[in-house]
């Protein structure tokens, strides 16, 4: 890279990446739990994609029944710790809290969930669930992200033998590799993996389906297969200069940061992040935390169309990230390393009734922004090649088509959930898919 941002001290890195939502103390958790109205047929439960009985788990915190609280949470969601820390609660449970209508701060549901789950892991994962008698049937799961883990946990408790095949050395999928470290750490995700393993689920790491084992062999080994494979490569910008040193894709960059070896991640002095989704925000705020002096987000549409959540936008602005809306990259400039990015100003034109406004270039509005690093965050494609190799699977818009009743794909023994069926949503959606797919698989196998 042309201009590297100076490395920071260890303490400074730790400070920069410290949790933005610290844990509640016992006192504050009980006080907050007691503030909960214990609504009946509560809106927060409805707003949670996994429908955790939120008032019930919160009341249990209030009475000091912390194991019971954790049990209530796990009954709905096996990615409970990650969700507690990384869920966009503002638009889900906390956004639905009745206190919002009362013009009072909503109950801190995420932090309370974390309190109960932290306690559960601190207590050494005491047994809360009893598996049903063995079914003498096995299910292979591809991918150990939240969807795969949830599916595995649920199936194991239903009495199935479960093997999760994970290509990476460290399991957990995006929970381990894709969440900003100031929200969750890899160690959090690994606790969830341990929990699922405690039900008898085997997790084979460094086992890439297609490389180390063919899908055909895997399918033959099991009575059913669940695909929780997430998404594939980052989408390219398709402009010149993309091969210059200093151009990285957001997923790789975030993975690198997730190793928590902060000083080994090279960061440019001036960083341009392309795209304005939640991944872009993560990349931008992590760049700032690694010591970049100037970080900007370039987005071809306006603030209104941006897919990043409001609270993520606020966080980025608070961190000092500069937003260039209606700005599209034309080419990346540099000899061997990135030196600048040529952009063009855009305007939005009506694309017809009910359709998203279309960004259109404003002629001769090109200008160059000097930057040392470009992070591409305009989305990810599907793992098309792999998916296409599976007989009967239907893919539309990069999403595996499933029957929403039971999560079955076009291939009757293959089920799927998580990002590969929804194109990239929240951890909590993947956790829900995995659980529901497990019941779909159970129904399918027991009807067989």
């Amino acid at each position: 890279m042309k201009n590297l941002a100076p490395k920071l001290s260890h303490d400074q890195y730790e400070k920069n990446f410290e949790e933005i939502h610290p844990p509640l103390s016992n006192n504050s958790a009980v006080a907050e739990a007691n503030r909960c109205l214990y609504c009946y047929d509560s809106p927060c439960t409805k707003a949670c994609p996994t429908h955790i009985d939120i008032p019930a788990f919160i009341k249990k915190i209030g009475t000091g029944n912390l194991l019971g609280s954790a049990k209530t949470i796990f009954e709905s969601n096996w990615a409970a710790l990650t969700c507690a820390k990384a869920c966009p609660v503002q638009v889900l449970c906390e956004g639905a809290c009745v206190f919002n209508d009362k013009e009072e701060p909503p109950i801190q549901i995420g932090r309370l969930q974390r309190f109960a789950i932290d306690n559960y892991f601190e207590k050494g994962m005491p047994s809360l669930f009893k598996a049903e008698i063995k079914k003498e049937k096995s299910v292979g799961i591809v991918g150990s992200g939240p969807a795969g883990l949830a599916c595995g946990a649920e199936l194991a408790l239903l009495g199935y033998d479960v093997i999760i095949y994970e290509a990476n050395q460290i399991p957990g999928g995006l929970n381990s590799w894709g969440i900003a470290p100031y929200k969750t750490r890899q160690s959090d995700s690994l606790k969830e993996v341990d929990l699922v393993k405690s039900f008898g689920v085997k997790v084979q790491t460094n086992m890439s389906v297609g490389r180390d084992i063919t899908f055909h062999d895997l399918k033959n080994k099991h009575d059913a297969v669940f695909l929780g494979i997430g998404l594939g490569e980052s989408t390219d910008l398709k402009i010149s200069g993309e091969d210059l040193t200093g151009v990285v894709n957001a997923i790789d960059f975030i993975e690198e940061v997730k190793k928590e070896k902060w000083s080994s991640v090279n960061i440019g002095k001036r960083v341009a992040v392309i795209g304005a989704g939640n991944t872009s925000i993560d990349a931008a705020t992590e760049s700032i935390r690694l010591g970049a002096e100037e970080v900007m987000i370039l987005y071809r549409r306006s603030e209104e169309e941006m897919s990043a959540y409001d609270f993520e936008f606020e966080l980025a602005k608070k961190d000092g990230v500069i937003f260039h809306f209606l700005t599209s990259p034309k080419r990346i400039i540099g000899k061997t390393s990135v030196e600048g990015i040529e952009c063009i100003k855009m305007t939005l034109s009506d694309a017809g009734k009910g359709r998203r406004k279309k960004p259109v270039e404003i002629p001769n509005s090109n200008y160059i922004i000097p930057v040392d690093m470009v992070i591409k965050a305009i989305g990810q494609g599907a793992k098309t090649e792999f998916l296409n190799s599976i007989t009967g699977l239907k893919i539309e818009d990069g999403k595996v088509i499933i029957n929403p009743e039971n999560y079955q794909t076009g291939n009757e023994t293959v089920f799927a959930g998580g990002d590969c069926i929804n194109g990239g949503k929240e951890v909590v959606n993947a956790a829900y898919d995995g659980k529901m797919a497990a019941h779909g698989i159970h129904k399918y196998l027991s009807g067989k």
Partner: protein
Amino acid sequence: MVDLSVNCGGIKSPNPFWLASAPPSNSAYQNCKAFEQGWGGTVWKTVGEPVMNVCNRYGSIDFNGQKIAGLNNIELISDRPIEVNMKEIAETKRLWPDRAIVVSLMVESKKETWHDIVKRTIDTGADGIELNYGCPHGMSERGMGSAVGQVPEYCKMITEWVTEVSTIPVLVKLTPNVNDIVLPARAAKKANASGISLINTINSIVGIDLDTFKIMPSVAGKSSHGGFAGPAIKPIALHMVSQVATDKEVNLPISGIGGISSWRDALEFILLGASSVQVCTAVMHHGFRIVKDMIEGLTFWMEEKGFNSLDEVRGRSLPQLEVFGNFNLLHKTVARIDQDKCIHCNLCHIACEDGAHQCIDLITENGNTKTVVRESDCVGCDLCSIVCPVEGCISMVRLDEGKEEKTWNELMEEFKKEGKELSWENLGEFQKKHGIVIH
């Protein structure tokens, strides 16, 4: 200009707020500091028999994360010698001539001993005496405190020993640990007491530690009942104050005590007939400074309501007290929910459904839940509006026009005249006539 001054049985103070005889009124240092902050009077922590205290002394009930909803104690009377206390009382009175200094006393049940301590108290220049017949722990084992308060005869006898030599007003402080609070109050009246202070603390075991099985407070593994005080006891105290205030035989000024933490609490006691009020637990929790809000809040309230003195307020709510048999059976209210204010917590639905009369339906409208009262089935119990967390969202609306009135007693009188017996059939006939439907 609002006048907050009071005269409770001849004991005058610039405002009704007194420290109760308790740890906060233990010493000259504390009482003087309290007066500096504005307290109108103090009842000096009980002076008398030699005692020794133990630790720990307190246990608390914390409710839903709120500290000290109630406080239990096993602390005894002053553990400092009579001489020391009397000297400090005299000094404090000299420094604060306009404040009420009442001295709480408790000695063994001997006439001479009582005569002696009463005379020594008068010599300090104190404004009054309060007889501690209430302390329910420790002292009662030694035949004092509530052991006296629980037996009207003892209460009368000892009060007479005091009043026969006292030249200053004598208040008798009652224990609530009795079947009928009026009886010891009448005994005090017969013995020429100037007023009644109530209530003292309530016998209690405050809690048990579920890890150690220790009863709280634990004195090196041993425990005992203590005296319960604080916000939790206010309703019990208000009831007892009202009983003494409405008893025609007693007819004495009252110093109200029991869970008073704010001017609002104080006003409730005054509205039920108290002349002064005494505070302990709230001071133990937050310090003497709370009196500033008490004085200010009471003053603003009086100004807003147009009252000039507490004489206009005292006992104002007492005339409403009636026996159940005199309530109008034809009074009808129903719950109305303001849908604009509703936040959809559905607590009214589940409270009514499981805890009352199943008349609030939870219906789904455009994907949202909505609570709707079936007014024909509503018994007007008020539970829904009590559980509703939104101010003014559920109101109880009066449906009768107040023109018709029939009390239970009147109805029974009518039955008697018509030669009807009290039966479900006859009662049903009355209900039917007035459109009262019972589910």
